[in-house]
């Protein structure tokens, strides 16, 4: 094995951390701290890689080794701009979620911490993989830790949510498996650098099925509301902040570049689905009776916007979509953790049982207000920049779609403002017993603040993300739009 070990270490550190947590005979508190250290070490390494990254350099931190020579499977990892920013996003979000888990004192810390780290390891692996089969390994390996996290530490309907999640995601990913094998065997190698393009619509749709379910894109989101409501809040945060990005990442990394023909021919269908999903889910978010429901549907809506940015297929739209992935990832984790804090403290998530939390809780009010305002994409915020780019991309080729999608900004303002006022100002109809005893935030700030800081930094300096991804986006988009020219 030669080349840079950075990409490999990025997924090995969480994996090693998980093994240590399981094996070492220490107290639960120590296990939690150990897991946090492993997650933070990954963060440091990911951020160091981000600073080290050369924006004009293509795929970097590469390493390659034969895996199964008989089938042409390779262990090939590396990061281009797209992988890099998503790895950094993962590495920032996981310690925050883990911090929440430690703060909420999850029972059976050994298994809990190990599963969280396994999840991080799998996500990073699929992001750095430059081999189709290796990507698939990461994509599948996410499922088991997530299912267990939902099924063991989740809410009252956790079993149903976990099984739904598993069935939906596996149906998608097993369809993809066939496509992966077919594609790899035709090319004689699964290495992305050696696989050519394919014109098969079926294979393209098999890939898209997996990614659309994972993302989720409307109408493949059937598993989402259950999973987001019933999982522990920090797992819901990772599901919507990090795992969903794996779906969008897959579209950009595989579905488009490997199938330029079918992607180009079928793009209007995906644009239409994304538009419907964006508007519909934004409307549904407004009607939700609980704070997590609002966040869940807003998250599906935002993912549809990302899908729109991807399938309008121009540089601006794709860059906007990637930037939106980062922003949405950070914000949705923040929103879910905030909802989680309130839920853990009061034991309730329904708006009719909680509310008027602003009085005497200045810290909480500040965080909620910040998160809500940032989510409605107020001008000057990072999310505004990315949504603007996506909509601009849409206007370029389909002005009507762009105009309709812009309505989502209004809808976002509606549900975000309702969320803020329901939590902070409106008095609850039927107050939960724990409500009046809830203290202001204290230790909670340790895992909420990093997310806020990241959002602020990106609001001030969006270029940090956009100039790192611009090159890979141009490569992906131009490969597809080359089909435009006869």
């Amino acid at each position, binding site marked *: 094995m030669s080349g840079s070990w950075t990409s490999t270490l990025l997924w090995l550190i969480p994996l090693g951390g998980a093994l240590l947590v399981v094996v070492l005979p220490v107290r639960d508190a120590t296990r939690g701290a150990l897991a946090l250290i492993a997650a933070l070490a990954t963060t440091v390494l990911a951020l160091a890689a981000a600073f080290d990254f050369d924006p004009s350099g293509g795929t970097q931190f590469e390493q390659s080794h*034969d*895996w*199964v*020579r*008989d*089938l042409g*499977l390779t262990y090939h990892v590396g990061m281009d701009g797209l992988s890099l920013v998503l790895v950094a996003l993962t590495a920032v979000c996981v310690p925050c979620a883990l911090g929440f888990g430690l703060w909420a004192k999850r029972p059976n810390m050994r*298994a809990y911490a190990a599963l969280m780290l396994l999840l991080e390891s799998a996500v990073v692996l699929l992001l750095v993989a430059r081999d189709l*089969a290796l990507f*698939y*390994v*990461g994509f*599948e*390996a996410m*499922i*088991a830790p997530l*299912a*267990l996290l939902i*099924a*063991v530490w989740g809410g009252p309907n956790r*079993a149903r949510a*976990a*099984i739904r999640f*598993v*069935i939906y995601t*596996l*149906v998608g990913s*097993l*369809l993809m*498996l*066939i496509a992966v*094998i*077919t594609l*790899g*065997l035709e090319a004689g190698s699964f290495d992305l650098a050696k696989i050519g393009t394919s014109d098969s619509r079926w294979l393209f749709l098999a890939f898209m099925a997996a990614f659309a379910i994972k993302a989720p894109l409307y109408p493949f989101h059937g598993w989402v509301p259950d999973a987001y409501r019933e999982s522990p809040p920090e797992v819901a945060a990772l599901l919507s902040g990090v795992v969903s990005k794996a779906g969008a990442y897959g579209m950009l990394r595989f579905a488009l570049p490997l199938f330029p023909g079918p992607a180009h021919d079928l793009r209007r269908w995906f644009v239409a689905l994304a538009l419907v999903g964006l508007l519909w889910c934004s409307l549904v978010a407004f009607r939700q009776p609980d704070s997590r429901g609002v966040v869940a549907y807003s998250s599906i809506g935002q993912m549809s916007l990302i899908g729109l940015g991807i399938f309008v297929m121009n540089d601006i739209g794709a860059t906007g979509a990637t930037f939106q992935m980062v922003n949405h990832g950070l914000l949705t984790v923040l929103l879910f953790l905030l909802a989680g804090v309130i839920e853990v403290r009061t034991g309730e998530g329904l708006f009719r049982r909680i509310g008027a939390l602003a009085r005497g809780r200045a810290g909480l009010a500040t965080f909620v207000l910040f998160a809500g305002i940032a989510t409605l994409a107020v001008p000057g915020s990072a999310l505004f920049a990315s949504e603007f780019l996506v909509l601009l991309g849409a206007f370029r080729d389909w002005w009507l779609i762009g105009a309709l999608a812009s309505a989502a900004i209004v809808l976002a303002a509606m549900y975000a403002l309702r969320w803020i006022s329901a939590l902070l100002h409106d008095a609850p109809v039927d107050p939960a017993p724990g409500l009046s005893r809830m203290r202001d935030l204290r230790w909670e700030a340790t895992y909420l603040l990093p997310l806020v800081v990241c959002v602020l930094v990106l609001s001030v300096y969006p270029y940090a993300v956009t100039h790192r991804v611009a090159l890979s986006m141009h490569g992906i988009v131009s490969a597809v739009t080359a089909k435009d020219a006869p």
Partner: protein
Amino acid sequence: MIVAAAASIDTPSVQIGAILPAAILIVGALVLLIVGSFESRSARVTSGVIGLLSFAGAGLATWHLWNNGDGTAFSGQLSTDRYAALVQAIVCASGVACVLLGWGTRRLSDRIAEYYSLLCFAGAGMCILSAANGFVSLFVALELFSISLYVLCALDVSSEASLESGLKYLITGSVGSAALLFGSGLAYIATGSLRFDQIGTALNSGISHTGILLVGIALVVTGLAFKASAAPFHMWTPDVYEGAPTAVMAFMATATKTIALATLLRVMITAFSPASDVWESAVAAVAIASMLIGNIAALRQTNVKRMLAYSSVGQAGYLLIAVVAHTPLATRAMLYYLTVYAAMNLGALAVVSVREREIGGPVFIGDLRGLGRDHPLLAGGLALSLLSLASFPPTGGFLAKVYLFGSAIDAGKTYLAVIGVIATMISLAYYLRFLLAIYTPAASEARPRIVPGTRLAAVAVLVSAGVVLWLGIAPQPLVEVARTAAASLVPPG
């Protein structure tokens, strides 16, 4: 006159080296019978150790076969190639694991020597069968291990379930054997030979595919499908597996299935591949039926052994994909899959055998609750086995499926891969149900007492878990071995 007759019969030269693993097992089995005739307090340990040593020695002897390279023995009745050596190694490894699994079984204590002896006889039969190059040696070897297994199933004479299991297996197994015997007779009529390679040559030289040949092939496939418990010849499987002692079930589920499918592949490739147009679709139908019926029926099982029995029917279906494809790649894929299959099933059954002794009865899904707390190590091993059976990466089960489905797509049988994937999806539902049960807190706080044999079973679990993980992460060494072994059956083209 007598002398003249004797001279005219071509007596085969006996090459013990060609059947060294089987010979070791037979010697071990005979010694065990002698040991069993002495009443002794230490018979339990002595016979266990002898059984263990026999299987381990036979396993080491496969190394000798491997190094000898490809050849034939016993007048061409056995083909001592590397394919056979690898299959024998899998059988012997299963045997070692099953000896460890059966160690703490108190129920068999007064017949423990016979138990190990029969296990060794069965192993010897399988070793010979793996090298069989003609229908005569095939049938003799098949009966040697089948009859041993009939008795093994019924060995727990105080248990009605065990007796029922033995009787059921005897009846259905005999039907399978009879079908196989009749089929080989018909194949002889059609081609004029009982040796696989000569049948292949005869078919290649342009014998028309008569109806007799077709029926013959169908019956041969039926007979071996009975042994491999492929649907629709699987009806005996859940009842027999459930009733048999767990160690015996483990041996049947791993070694018997390995040998039946490996032999089927050898017969189909060496003898009948020129007539592949007549049997491919039939075997494909059996494969599809097994994948779907096995996995759908497993959905409703609550008894762990029954679930694993139906799951093994499904696994037979996946493995039959390789028989349908019968390309060099498919042969490699099957050998790889068989190795992983043996490891993951043994890992799961070792845990079941411990739990069974703890609660003193059959293990249902509810009895797995709290396993994660009582035995973190065993629970982890069982979880890994289930994940591998459900083909999650990074376990060997995942790569094995990729390999197998890849070989199907490569051979132009994409539909089989698609159905395989659908069957895999179905299978997740029940594997995950059992997986969740392991980590669900038990109803009672009481911890079960530690039963004898737990440590030995834990060794088996650890080794299987190691193999499953190793084959999922660094498969290249086994792939190379499988490539060499497969090349002795089908030259890579």
